[in-house]
Structures are given as structure tokens and as C-alpha cells.
């Protein structure tokens, strides 16, 4: 899958303005990426995008997995600094816990690109706009609901209060849906832990208490599909239900969309593109370029029809359609940031 992607990457590269400038300059020898959770599909695709871009540019990419252990993330940064990597890319396990890493990296003179979550004292962050992603999906969901759903909009949010990013998504979704359906009510605001089994369990209990909802929003696909599975396990009818997923990190959403069931909207965030952009930002940092504090990676709300424009899906694997993805425009600024919470 990655090899075929390479050819597409070359075409894609020229469309990114920033890349054009970095290509002309020096590239770092080694880049170290500290991923917070490499066993998650989202990050596997981020790494995939990063690896391919690195290979493209002739950069050696090293990856250390913090495996959700914040202390291990600090250790990984130390290890990279001991190995004299030229640039570090970090997806913080926790925003506050990464502050000393940045201080130490600065002292050691190693530039850092953050991915995903902002940290106090950072230089630059490559991330999607979480609030905007949720908001846009909310607007689409509101439109869909107007046409297809009976009764007032009642939402079950399978959320993750753990991270500000996921809180922004949920808030954005509710704000967005209310632009179309001002009476939309948040019936259940759940902590689904971001993983499918917990999401399923929490949703099942919530649905047993009150199953009078017609929209399930999940802050990632695991949460959305966990909520949907709980709905199914409760034996509820699927004809007056809209499920909105977020992320598009793996195959699960494509699989579900292929069935043309209640999952009608997916706020896709294109992890491959995030990895790609992060690598380019690392190169720019290495060259001492002046980067914006927030480099936005684009997102887009997919429907079962448009999903296949962005991803080729054969039931077993998916391939990103770079041409289509690179047509997307990302805003310079997000509507809301974590600091606005």
C-alpha cells in the first residue's frame, strides 16, 4: 500500500506551498517521532504518512512509542536527544506533561514539532482544527437531520473529556448542529474512554436509561461505532438514527458506511495527511524557517458517497487518494482552540 502511495506523494508534494521552499534547502538527517500510542490505527496512519514523506526526502525517521505512558514520553525525548536527532516530532500523551520536554529540547537546541495537541511553550503545532471538524460535521448532521429524521434532534455524545481536542470536537458538533436545528438537545454526554468496549458499555447503560435519541456523535470512530453497537445490542430500530463518526482513522468507518446503515456522516481527519504535513514542518523547522504557531491539516465531512472519492476501499484495505485530499483547503486559523475552553 505504501509503495503505490509513493507515486501519488510525488504529485501531491508540489501542491503544498511550504514543501516547495523546503525542497530547495537542506534536509535533516534524522527525525525522531514520539508517538503517544502507536497501537492505535490513527497513529499508524500518521506514521505511515510520515514514513513515506521521510523516504521521499531521504530522511531517516525513528519512532518511539510512549504507549500512553507520559513518563515514557519524557524518557523517549531524552533518548532522542542522546542520539542527536535533528528534529523531534511529538504527539503529547498529555498537554501539560510535555512542558518540561520542550524546555529541555530548547536547552539542547533540538527543534520540536508538535502533532495533535498544543503545549505551552511550543513553536509550532501540526493539527487539524478539532472544533471546526466537529462544527462542520454538526452542520452537515443538522442538514441531514432536517431531511431524514423525525422529531426533535436528541444527541448522545460518546465523548472523551480526557483530552481538550476531543472536548472541542464534541462542543463543535453541538454548536454546528444547532445552526441548523436550534432545538437540538444533548441528552447523553458520556465518557466513552475513546475505546470501543468502554464506549459500548457506557452507551448501553445510557440507552437503557433513555433510548429516546436519534443522533449518536462519537469523538472518534471507536466511540461512534461503540455507541452504534450498544444501540444494536439494545435491539433498537435503526431507521430513525444518524451516527456521526470522527477521524476516519481506519477501516471500520468505511466498512460501516458500505452497509449504508445509520453511519451517514464521517468527519474525516486524514491521518496520513497529518503525518505528511508534520514531516514537512520538521524540515522547515530544521531550516530555521518562521512557521505559524498552528499549521492546520485539513478535514472534511464524508458521506457514504463521497467517502470513496477520498479512499479506495476494497473491503480489506484502503488507499488514500492524494489528489483529492490535497484539493482540500485548510483554514489559517481554527474557530476555537483549547485555550478557549
Amino acid at each position, binding site marked *: 500500500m505504501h509503495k503505490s502511495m509513493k507515486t501519488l506523494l510525488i504529485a501531491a508534494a508540489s501542491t503544498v506551498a511550504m514543501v516547495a521552499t523546503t525542497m530547495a534547502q537542506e534536509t535533516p538527517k534524522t527525525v525522531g517521532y514520539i508517538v503517544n500510542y502507536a*497501537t492505535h490505527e490513527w497513529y*499508524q496512519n500518521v506514521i505511515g504518512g510520515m514514513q513515506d514523506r521521510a523516504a521521499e526526502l531521504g530522511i531517516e525517521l525513528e519512532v518511539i512509542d510512549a504507549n500512553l505512558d507520559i513518563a515514557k514520553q519524557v524518557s523517549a525525548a531524552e533518548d532522542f536527544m542522546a542520539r542527536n536527532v535533528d528534529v523531534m516530532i511529538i504527539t503529547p500523551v498529555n498537554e501539560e506533561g510535555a512542558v518540561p520536554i520542550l524546555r529541555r529540547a530548547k536547552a539542547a537546541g533540538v527543534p520540536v514539532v508538535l502533532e495533535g495537541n498544543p503545549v505551552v511553550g511550543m513553536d509550532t503545532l501540526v493539527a487539524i482544527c478539532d472544533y471546526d471538524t466537529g462544527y462542520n460535521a454538526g452542520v452537515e448532521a443538522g442538514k441531514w437531520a432536517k431531511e431524514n429524521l423525525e422529531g426533535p434532534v436528541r444527541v448522545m455524545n460518546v465523548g472523551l473529556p480526557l483530552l481538550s481536542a476531543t472536548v472541542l470536537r464534541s462542543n463543535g458538533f453541538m454548536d454546528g448542529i444547532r445552526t441548523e436545528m436550534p432545538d437540538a438537545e444533548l441528552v447523553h454526554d458520556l465518557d466513552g474512554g475513546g*475505546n470501543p468496549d468502554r464506549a459500548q458499555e457506557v452507551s448501553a447503560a445510557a440507552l437503557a436509561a433513555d433510548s429516546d435519541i436519534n443522533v449518536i456523535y462519537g469523538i472518534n470512530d471507536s466511540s461512534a461505532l461503540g455507541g452504534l453497537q450498544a444501540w444494536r445490542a439494545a435491539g433498537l430500530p435503526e431507521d430513525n438514527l444518524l451516527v456521526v463518526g470522527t477521524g476516519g482513522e481506519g477501516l471500520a468507518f468505511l466498512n460501516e458506511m458500505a452497509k449504508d446503515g445509520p453511519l451517514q456522516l464521517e468527519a474525516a481527519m486524514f491521518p496520513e495527511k497529518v503525518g505528511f504535513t508534520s514531516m514537512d514542518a520538521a524540515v522547515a523547522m530544521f531550516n530555521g524557517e518562521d512557521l505559524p504557531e498552528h499549521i492546520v491539516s485539513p478535514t472534511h465531512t464524508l458521506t457514504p458517497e463521497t467517502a470513496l472519492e477520498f479512499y479506495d476501499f476494497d473491503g480489506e484495505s484502503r488507499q488514500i487518494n492524494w489528489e483529492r485530499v490535497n484539493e482540500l483547503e485548510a483554514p489559517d486559523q481554527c474557530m476555537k482552540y483549547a485555550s478557549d475552553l
Partner: protein
Amino acid sequence: MSVTSDQSPTRQARGLSLGGLLRNEQIFLIILLAVLIVGLSLAAPRFMTAENATAILHQSAMVLIVAVGMTMLLITAEVDISVGASLAFASCVVMDVINTTSSLTLGILAGLAFGGGVGLFNGLVVTRLKVNSLIATIATMMILQGGVFLYTREAVQNHHQIEAFSLIATGYVGPVPVPVIIAALLAVVFYVMLNYTLIGRRVFAVGSNPKAARLSGLSPETIKLVAFVVTGILVGVAATILASLLNAGQPTAGRGFELIVIAAVLLGGTSLFGGKGTIAGTILGVLILKIIDNGIIILRWNQDLQIIVPGVVIILAMFLDQLRKGRTDG
């Protein structure tokens, strides 16, 4: 107080005194359960509905399936911490094998075989290499948590779309969810096995006094090994349900599952030191923990309480157990 005489068919000489009632752990748990149900019904009108009762049973099913095996294992004075990690791995195996073979039967068998295989490995490490089962199964847990990602980098999706597969978790027989029926059947089987059969009696004997059991011609190692394998197979059963429930094999699932299972079994009055335990107690333990879980969500309390309350309940239950023991021992 005596091993399983609460269920003994030949129960005779026990007076129904107040002290006797207090000493009977099941009664205590039933009272606790009743208090919970009444309290929650009063506090949240939506608690006492058929839908919610069904949901609670549904949630309890997977825990109970593994908990009955864990009860048997704890009675032999061993423990298995790896069940959560094994659950996740086995659910991936189930889905993968069905995807590959398009056979529901083969997939389920593969799940059971995988769970049983993990149980066999644990059992052999404990009985042959003489590694303390707590340590051995913590290590197995690590190996499985790592191993599952060597097996699959991502969730194993449902590519087979076999209709019957999704019914395992989400189907109903009348008003009763299928997993609840599976769990109930297994609970009955294990109840009968532990109380009325040769193997059940041997399980208790090995846990009560392994040396006496050996001198009586039994092989404690073999019986413990069987208990590990049986627990593992039950993990396979639960994994099949989990894969169906999530419509995918999830390598990240099952975190903390082992602690909930063990907590429920201990709450049910099974001893950590072997020789003592009942399926009825385990059922009550699972229900109590799951009702607490459910109640917290229904009452819209902070979900963080879901990890605090079980902790308090277990310590409290053990404390009351200690008080009762103190009284009988004089």
C-alpha cells in the same frame, strides 16, 4: 462457613438464627443487592424498567462468563490476571478466522482454542515451572498485550458479514439477550459441576488442602491445570461475544477486565486462599458491581465514581467478612 454446604443438598443441622444469617455471605450480598435496587429505583425512576434490567444483564453477561471460571480457579487457590489481555487477543482471532474461512463454527472454535491455549500456558507455567500464579499471569498479560499487536496492527474488521455472527451479542430470544442466556447456562453448568460432580469436589479438595488431596491420590497440578484451561476457554466464549458486540476484533479491548472479574468473584465470597467459593456468590458479585456501574450512569453522576465505588465495595465486603470470621472464631 463450611465449604459449599449452603448449596449442599443435605443441609440439615443449621439453625436459622440471626447469627447464622449473618454468617451466610449470600444473604448479606442479597441484602446489599436489594438495598441497591430499592435505593436506585427511588433515586432514578428510569432505573426500574425492563430495558434497563435487560441492559444490566447484558453488561453482566461477559463478566459473569469469565467470572464463573475465575471462581473455579480461585477455589483451587490460583488466579489469572491475563484474562483481559487474552479476551482482546482472542476476539481478534475469532474475527480473523471467520474472515478467512467464512465459517462461524471455525471462528468460535479458534477463539475457544486460543483462550484454552493461553490457559494451558498459564497452567503449565504455574504447575510445572512453579511460578506464583499472580506473577506468572501478570507476565502472560504483558506478553499477550504485546503479542496481539504483533498479530494485528489494527482492529480486525468484519469482512464476512455473516448475519448469525452479529446475533451472538445483539440477538434476543424472546425478551432475553443471547449473551445473557449463554452466561446463565454456563453459570448453571458450573454451579452443578462445582457442587454435585466429582470434578467439582476435587476442585474444592485441592484448594482446601493440596497436600491432603495429593495424599488421597489426586493430582493437584492436573486439577489446577484444568481450572486454568477451563477459565481460558471461557475467556474464548466471552471473546466471541465481544467480537460480535463490537463487530470487530479489538486489540485494545479488555483493559481492566481482569480486575472487574476478580473483584466480582471476591465480592461474591470466594477466598483468595482457595477452598471456598460459590457460583451464586459470584453471580451476586457481578450483578452488584454492574448495578453500581449502571446506577452511576443513570443518576448522571460523575463516571469517575465507577472506579471508586467498586474499590470501596470490595474493601467493605472483605471487612464485613473479617468481622463475621472474627465472631465465629471467638
